[in-house]
């Protein structure tokens, strides 16, 4: 799923304070799972902004709302009236949702309440870790199901580097060495011999480097 983290309140306030009306708009799927951008968080953030407006003696009408997903047209049906009344939207969606709103409502200012941080999993309650960078050319079949692109700090295709120490990465004791994990997995699978195969150079044209990506399902 997509993980995001709320921006500091001050930064949000600086973006929105000049409006007379603001809709604080949750997105109740990915970023709700990480407790940062769901409809519940939209309600809390709206309250904090109202308090901030009172403190700063700024007159601004703040309402909160939300939908299931800000990245698909059909979910916006229920907020058609709200959007037509809004002077500005503070979206708690990931960057995709923010842009979807901006494209859908050409004349409506929209601001991001979150920093979209990564594609990750939930390894424990409230603990999210990056697992994929959407490079467009998955190598997990070669690497025992551990991604070197998102999990090795140097995205080495032939690691580990000389900085791997006690299973941790040289840059932080908080980060597992992806190549230690890969080697351990290959060994557990009885495939350690595969370690010595050198993969072809990675085709980054399928990654961000190749420009914005899209695809269409045939016949739909």
């Amino acid at each position: 799923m997509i993980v995001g983290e709320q921006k500091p309140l001050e930064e949000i306030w600086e973006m929105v304070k000049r409006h007379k009306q603001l809709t604080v708009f949750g997105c109740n799927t990915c970023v709700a799972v990480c407790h940062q951008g769901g409809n519940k968080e939209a309600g809390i953030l709206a309250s904090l902004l109202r308090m901030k407006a009172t403190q700063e003696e700024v007159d601004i009408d703040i309402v909160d709302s939300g939908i299931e997903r800000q990245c698909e047209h059909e979910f916006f049906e229920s907020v058609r009236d709200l959007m037509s009344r809004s002077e500005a939207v503070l979206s708690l969606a990931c960057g995709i949702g923010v842009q979807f709103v901006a494209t859908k409502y050409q004349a409506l200012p929209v601001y991001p309440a979150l920093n979209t941080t990564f594609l990750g999993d939930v390894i424990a309650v409230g603990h999210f870790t990056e697992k994929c960078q959407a490079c467009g050319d998955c190598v997990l079949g070669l690497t025992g199901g551990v991604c070197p692109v998102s999990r090795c700090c140097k995205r080495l295709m032939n690691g580990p580097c000389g900085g791997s120490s006690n299973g941790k990465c040289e840059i932080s004791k908080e980060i597992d060495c992806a190549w230690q994990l890969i080697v351990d997995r290959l060994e557990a699978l009885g495939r350690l011999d595969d370690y010595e195969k050198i993969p072809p150079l990675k085709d980054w044209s399928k990654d961000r480097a190749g420009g914005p990506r899209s695809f269409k399902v045939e016949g739909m």
Partner: protein
Amino acid sequence: MDLKTNSRLEKVLKSGQLAVTSECGPPRSSAPEGIIKKGNLIKNHVDAINITDNQTSVTRLCSLAACVHLKLQGLDPVLQMVVRDRNRIALQSDILGAASFGINNVLCLSGDHQSFGDNPQAQNVFDIDSMQLVQTVRRMRDEGRFLSGDEIKVPPNMFVGAAANPFADPFKIRVPRLAKKIAAGAEFIQTQCIYNVDKFELWMQGVRDRGLHDKVFILAGITPMRSVGMAKYLRKSVPGMDVPEELIKRLSGVEKEKQAAEGITIAVETIQRLKEVKGVAGFHVMAIEWEEKVPEIVERAGLFPRPVID
């Protein structure tokens, strides 16, 4: 002697004599005098001089330009290239540029992560990795082809090296990793600084068991300790560095002003012990910002004079 390049280092190694290399770090300025001085300080005691490439991710005068300065002095530089800062276009371009100045050695490295340096906010590149850079240079040299497959009319004449760290984890992968670098095309290896000689010998045993010492020239990495403080710092704070407790005790046992001399003696003793290890083809003496001590280490270790190569 089956020589692939004009590299003096290749000639020394293939003549069966122990080679000696050293390294110099370029300055954090546009003045070349410092690097030229360092090079001249050690030129009679080494066969080739590595020039580091923005080591520890701190911005410096570029390795390629520093190599050119040494080449113009008649020295044999080893161009260190990290894949952190340049994509495959820039790497291939710089290899041609270096070869155009008659630089005949390259050491292919990943590079320290940028978080250690002066621009931790920088983007990193890592388009290819060090193993693939070895492959790239060999393809350019031996097949006369760019990665794209296009022809190189005058291929680069480069003796190709890589690094090995026998002390990093997981230890069980360190011999296979060397095998992989050899399969990629590495012709010489310069190792991480060796302080835990027992562990290094264990690694070399694994290297010999697979016959890898017959396929690549291994230069053992030597860095003299300047103080017990340095030893403790390397032990505690540098991942992949293995400094045994006994070495710290030995340095702690001498007065502060004599610790540097003791560090030199330890380096000399390490070289002497490693000379007896089958498969060690030479030494890479990295006296970090202490280049003036390289001649003394080389002489006391019995590695002087250096072979005369025409």
